[in-house]
């Protein structure tokens, strides 16, 4: 095994196969309050004497800001304050936490616009009033005077001026290895494509919200309604507002979907915090849906010009890609992350001797962009798999065969690419790519389906099928910790630095804890997203929670188990090695009847006043940390069969399969839920969803009537094949993340299937594939 991939020796590895509770589709422990209407989402948080904040937003996409007149607003009923940029001059712009590239700093967003307006929706002023309706009334009275400037809406157009001395291309993400030039000179064929992915995003059903209050009695600033990255956000809020981090606490209630966009540090988060400190009253801000469409991170928009050099058998010799990443108006917390991921992950599952990529990271006058579920992968899987289809067509090969010839083989694992992303080397940790491809083709009945489709086409139907292979990434380190404690009643509490965005974190961590401890998973209380309960944490993003916090849970629970067995051994006068824990009772491991003791009693015996504990740290509790230098790479294949209505151009999905190897499914029901839900979002990006703008940069997709997320009527039956053939060697559970594989390859698979239905290889060059475009392609095909 190669350096950095060998697991630490002392680790207890979870045996393969289903355990008592791990590997089983047990019911979620989260569901009760959510089903009773007892959840606590951001808007459900209220504090006495709170004020409501309303944001006045730019209505021009690019303008010189001349004057903001808030005098009329300040006299409105219930208004306590109105702030413009001058009032928050001391607050630095929103910083970035990820993929820091030198030179990006001047492009960060101020909390309120200064001098320039750069996108429709940019915060210009904020109103604080005693009632949400009155705050909105007053916001309408704020007059913004601005002088329009030319807008830049196309990231492929030449860069323009951002500010004196700075243009709208702050950086180019470059990666390269191998002899690219030589490979193209020696190539049997060169295949070139120009491809683009439309602007769309996570759009959770719950809009953002932030509720801040300052408790002067303890000198603590609290922020509620948070998600995803509480500890980093705490540190940054503290730094930006000049407070010590231990004087700031973030709290997570229920989170109505994250998908990458929620829980980043936004201007509104800082504004409510600053106002709570200054106005000495709790401040509540709840985003409305129109605001969400223009204020919360967009994603995905990229344009690729890609070339591949291949040999006579269709094997890749080199890829050379130049892409244009439309970042929108500012660089937000993610820095250049999505462009970096796109550049690093583009090669996917294939052997690639030489590679060169230049990602032009460009600003435009649109809402700023950042990550959305499978960031940089939804885009580049579309690009790469389009390329593989084009290679197959050029050489007269079957699309499955051309993939087979290029897939990294199981024997080559772990497979190191001379590439990095997110600051870690890309080492594909484990996988049997071709094995999964075979399973998926068999399950779908691919060969028989081809005959059936041919017959239907002969009968006049417009039907087709396509497939796309993908590699995901998960388990981003560097660390996460978990503390598990058992109290004197036997109740288990698990405190984690992870966050929940509604994906079932509590259940999954409880399952892992219960497996190790021998307790009922439903009685494990899982605490997450709270900076007052654990000092550090890296949150919930990048499909990292089950890998990182799951592994930390496993190790902490094993440590608690060991402590419990040791104390019980003393009580029962048996060696700990002869004991086990079942249903919260320590008993003989061999099943023989004999003395036993409950975990509650063991915990009592380990209390601070127990004589046995004199000189020792009391409590049946342990905290363990898990570290990882490298990511775990899940992978899979999507297969689509669809029908096109020649009259309307509408695409109807007839069958769909997602085959995804995630190493191990802690809860297969939840994994299927992640994959189906992820597919629905991929379907949106492939066929329906797009943030459109008019030529002046006015957003055209600002309601759910214009921005079409799939309803049940658009959802096909999705078959899910969860494979566990390639557990990750990087963690004791063997797990890889399951959050993004359902989304990753949907655009690519649909593109291939639409081409096939149209009998026009390469017809689809952009996403989303809208009915009007299909109509044009049908006309072209005729």
């Amino acid at each position, binding site marked *: 095994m190669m350096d950095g991939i060998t697991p630490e020796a002392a680790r207890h590895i979870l045996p393969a196969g289903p355990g008592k509770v791990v590997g089983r589709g047990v019911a979620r422990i989260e569901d009760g309050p959510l089903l009773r*209407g007892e959840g606590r*989402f951001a808007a459900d948080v209220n504090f006495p004497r709170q004020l409501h904040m309303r944001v006045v937003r730019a209505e021009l996409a690019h303008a010189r800001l001349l004057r903001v007149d808030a005098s009329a607003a300040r006299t409105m009923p219930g208004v306590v304050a109105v702030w413009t940029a001058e009032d928050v001059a001391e607050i630095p712009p929103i910083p970035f936490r990820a993929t820091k590239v030198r030179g990006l700093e001047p492009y960060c967003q101020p909390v309120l616009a200064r001098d320039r307006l750069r996108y429709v929706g940019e915060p210009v002023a904020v109103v604080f009033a005693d009632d949400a309706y009155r705050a909105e009334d007053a916001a309408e009275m704020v007059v913004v005077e601005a002088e329009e400037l030319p807008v830049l809406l196309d990231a492929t157009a030449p860069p323009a001026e951002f500010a004196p001395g700075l243009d709208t291309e702050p950086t180019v993400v470059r990666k390269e290895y191998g002899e690219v030039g030589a490979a193209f000179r020696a190539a049997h064929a060169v295949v070139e494509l120009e491809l683009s992915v439309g602007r769309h995003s996570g759009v959770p059903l719950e809009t953002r919200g932030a509720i801040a209050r300052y408790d002067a009695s303890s000198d603590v600033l609290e922020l509620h309604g948070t998600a995803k990255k509480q500890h980093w956000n705490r540190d940054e809020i503290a730094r930006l507002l000049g407070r010590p981090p231990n004087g700031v606490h973030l709290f997570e209630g*229920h989170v*109505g979907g994250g998908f990458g966009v929620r829980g980043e540090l936004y201007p509104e988060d800082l504004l409510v915090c600053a106002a709570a400190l200054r106005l000495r009253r709790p401040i509540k801000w709840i985003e409305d849906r129109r605001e969400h469409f223009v204020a919360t991170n967009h994603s995905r928009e990229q344009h690729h010009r890609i070339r591949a050099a291949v040999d006579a058998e269709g094997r890749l010799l080199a890829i050379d890609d130049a892409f244009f990443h439309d970042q929108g108006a500012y660089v937000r917390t993610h820095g250049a992350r999505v462009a970096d991921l796109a550049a690093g992950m583009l090669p996917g599952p294939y052997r690639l001797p030489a590679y060169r990529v230049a990602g032009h990271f460009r600003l435009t006058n649109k809402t700023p962009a950042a990550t959305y579920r499978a960031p940089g992968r939804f885009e580049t899987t579309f690009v790469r798999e389009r390329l593989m289809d084009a290679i197959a067509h050029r050489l007269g090969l079957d699309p499955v065969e051309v993939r087979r010839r290029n897939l990294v083989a199981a024997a080559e694992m772990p497979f190191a690419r001379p590439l990095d992303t997110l600051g870690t080397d890309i080492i594909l940790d484990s996988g049997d790519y071709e094995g999964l491809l075979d399973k998926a083709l068999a399950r779908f009945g691919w060969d028989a389906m081809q005959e059936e489709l041919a017959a239907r086409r002969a009968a006049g139907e417009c039907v087709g099928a396509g497939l796309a292979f993908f590699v995901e990434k998960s388990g981003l380190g560097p660390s996460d910790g978990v503390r598990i404690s058992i109290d004197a009643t036997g109740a288990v509490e698990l405190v984690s630095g992870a966050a929940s965005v509604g994906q079932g974190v509590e259940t999954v961590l409880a399952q892992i804890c219960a497996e190790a401890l021998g307790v009922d998973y439903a009685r494990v209380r899982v605490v997450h997203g709270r900076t007052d309960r654990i000092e550090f944490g890296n949150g919930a993003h990048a499909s990292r929670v089950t890998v990182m916090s799951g592994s930390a849970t496993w190790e902490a629970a094993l440590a608690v188990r060991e402590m419990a067995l040791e104390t019980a051994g003393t009580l029962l006068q048996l060696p700990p090695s002869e004991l086990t824990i079942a249903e919260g009772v320590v008993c003989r491991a061999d099943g023989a009847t004999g003395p036993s003791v409950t975990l509650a009693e063991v915990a009592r015996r380990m209390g601070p006043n127990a004589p046995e504990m004199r000189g020792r740290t009391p409590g049946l509790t342990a905290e363990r940390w898990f570290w990882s230098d490298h990511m775990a790479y899940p992978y899979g294949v999507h297969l689509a069969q669809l029908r096109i209505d020649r009259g309307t151009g509408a695409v109807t999905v007839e069958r769909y399969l997602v085959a995804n190897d995630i190493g191990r499914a802690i809860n297969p029901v939840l994994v299927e839920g992640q994959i189906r839900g992820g597919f*629905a979002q991929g379907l949106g990006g492939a066929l329906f969803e797009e943030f459109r703008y008019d030529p002046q940069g006015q957003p055209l997709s600002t309601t759910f*009537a214009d921005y079409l997320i799939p309803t049940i009527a658009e959802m096909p039956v999705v078959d899910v094949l969860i494979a566990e053939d390639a557990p990750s060697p990087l963690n004791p559970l063997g797990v890889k993340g399951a959050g993004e594989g359902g989304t990753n390859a949907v655009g690519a698979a649909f593109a291939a299937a639409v081409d096939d239905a149209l009998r026009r290889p390469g017809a689809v060059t952009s996403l989303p594939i809208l009915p009007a475009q299909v109509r044009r392609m049908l006309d072209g095909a005729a």
Partner: protein
Amino acid sequence: MSDAMHDLTLTLNGQAHAIRVEARRTLADALREDCGLTGTHLGCEHGVCGACTVLMDGQPVRACLLFAVQAEGRAIRTVEGLAKGGALNPLQRAFAENHALQCGYCTPGFLMLGTAILETDPGISDEALVEALSSNLCRCTGYANIARAIRAAADAMSTEGAA
């Protein structure tokens, strides 16, 4: 804007709530802010997503598109009224058993929509069920388990009814 306040009594899950609101106060805001029933969620405030679906005289309605004053004298039912004595009802149980929720934000709306379906057309065809459920948005689940849960609840209730 009118400052005139209206005194009205809402009948929520069988209980009377006397509140004083502006004419422009939406039913959703009145439920959440004036009556403390925060189980009804707002997802779009323009009547598309259905997260705020409640039952008014047995019919599913968007609480964001109604003013509170329009609900006076009508029987309003919300998600808080489903569980009896803390015990989940068959539809709620079916949602849990079929993993029909992830983040749970759209869930109250789907539960109330599902309640109306079960009460008015328990033998609903699959096609009509899809048609009915297409009025609400979910961003997490991909919907299949929501439809399955409602079907399971219908089956469970017909079995209970027959027994």
